[in-house]
């Protein structure tokens, strides 16, 4: 294969050291070598395509040479301009080191805080829990088939409201909740940052021994799991009797 005649010619680029930042765009050509002669920065080992490329042409305040013998000629000139510079050549990557900017765009301050909010969600989720007034439950439960109560666990929340957990829920009106781990979120709502649900769970309920019932305004209440008992007519009658006795005392 014939030798590439054009590559025999050595091209040189000279630029004032103060403008060396303008060389950034040719730094990617790792074959280039750089040397410093007093205040002039020399770059050599261009090939023909590179010396005529846009990258080189767009560098301001440069001087381009080609060498013949021990003399440097200005590009497109037949007259020698100066002798070859006698400098120590180093690869351009080492001569022009890259310094990363000190500002990290991915950095979030650890002192900043995130507001936990619930937003309405389009994702359909099956309700597994509900809160309803005791009166509604008491009228239903006295005529309810036992098979519907079997799978429900329940507790009394604040004397007026019953909390039911289990599927299928009873056919009664009330606020329903869906489940994400131990978080019970109101149906139709989800955490604004749902990716944080595990973190929130660990934070408010590290032992996983409580149900966290969330309200739409992002407040929550913890109900210990051991206080949630199987629902039966007997359980309901005994509990509501005891509760009304407690409050009357």
């Amino acid at each position: 294969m014939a030798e590439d005649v054009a590559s025999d010619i050595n091209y040189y680029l000279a630029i004032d050291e103060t403008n060396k930042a303008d060389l950034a765009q040719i730094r990617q050509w790792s074959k280039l070598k750089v040397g410093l002669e007093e205040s002039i920065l020399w770059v050599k080992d261009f090939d023909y395509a590179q010396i005529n490329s846009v990258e080189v042409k767009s560098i301001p305040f440069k001087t381009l040479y080609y060498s013949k013998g021990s003399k440097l000629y200005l590009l497109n000139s037949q007259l020698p301009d100066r002798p070859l510079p006698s400098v120590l050549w180093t690869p351009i990557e080492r001569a022009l080191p890259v310094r990363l900017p000190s500002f990290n765009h991915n950095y979030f301050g650890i002192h900043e805080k995130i507001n936990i909010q619930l937003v309405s969600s389009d994702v359909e989720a099956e309700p597994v829990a509900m809160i309803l007034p005791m009166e509604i439950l008491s009228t239903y439960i006295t005529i309810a088939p036992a098979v519907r109560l079997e799978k429900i666990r329940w507790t009394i929340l604040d004397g007026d409201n019953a909390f039911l957990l289990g599927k299928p829920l009873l056919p009664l009106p009330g606020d329903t909740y869906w489940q994400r781990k131990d978080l019970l979120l109101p149906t139709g709502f989800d955490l604004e940052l749902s990716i944080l649900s595990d973190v929130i769970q660990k934070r408010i309920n590290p032992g996983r021994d409580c149900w966290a019932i969330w309200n739409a305004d992002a407040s929550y209440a913890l109900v210990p799991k051991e206080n949630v008992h199987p629902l039966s007519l007997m359980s309901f009658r005994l509990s509501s009797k005891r509760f009304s006795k407690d409050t009357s005392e």
Partner: protein
Amino acid sequence: MAGHTDNYFLKMIQNLRKHEDVLLYDNILNTTVEDEKEVVDFLNEEYSLEALNHPYQSPEFNSHASLWAAKTVYISAQLILYRENKDADLSTLLPGFTSEVNTAAVLSADLCLRFLPDLIIQLKLIDSEDALIQVLEATLKQWHYSSVRYTQDIDLLDFAVVNSDPCLHQLYCNRIVQQRSMALAKHPVFYDSIRSQLGIYGSELWNEFSLSNHSS
């Protein structure tokens, strides 16, 4: 207090109710009035506990029916274990129930009668041609609420009492669903109620029942 500690009738019934075991102390077929009173008191307590689980209006405790049922179970267990009597004595040892059979009687008698099917199954294992089996099966035919698990000819059963009272009807449905008694569930007395109780969750709560509805 001697009668209290030696009340084997009460001990047997208590053990049956609390541990669901039959424990017999001796072959004693006669019970005294005092023993019976203690048994009735105990069953009354048990009934008032169970009544908490009764839907609608729970009927009053029927002491007569509950004592009769307790005696029936007690004597049947004795007869299964120690048979010294002739078959002809069976009807005197196990008299039928003579008073009116109403909801209260059914629920009160059920406290003990619900254990009768298991006794019959045991008896069948011992001697499948025992005359006692027929006597007890005849009892269960009348008190079929206690024998939902026990296969019977459903067409011969009388559901008039069940139909008349919503509490008993609901309890009966509960028991049918709990025991998965398909034959009774298909009976017209219960079919509509059970179907509406299961509702759209039929496949979840009792798959076989809802499947048979689709096929029919």
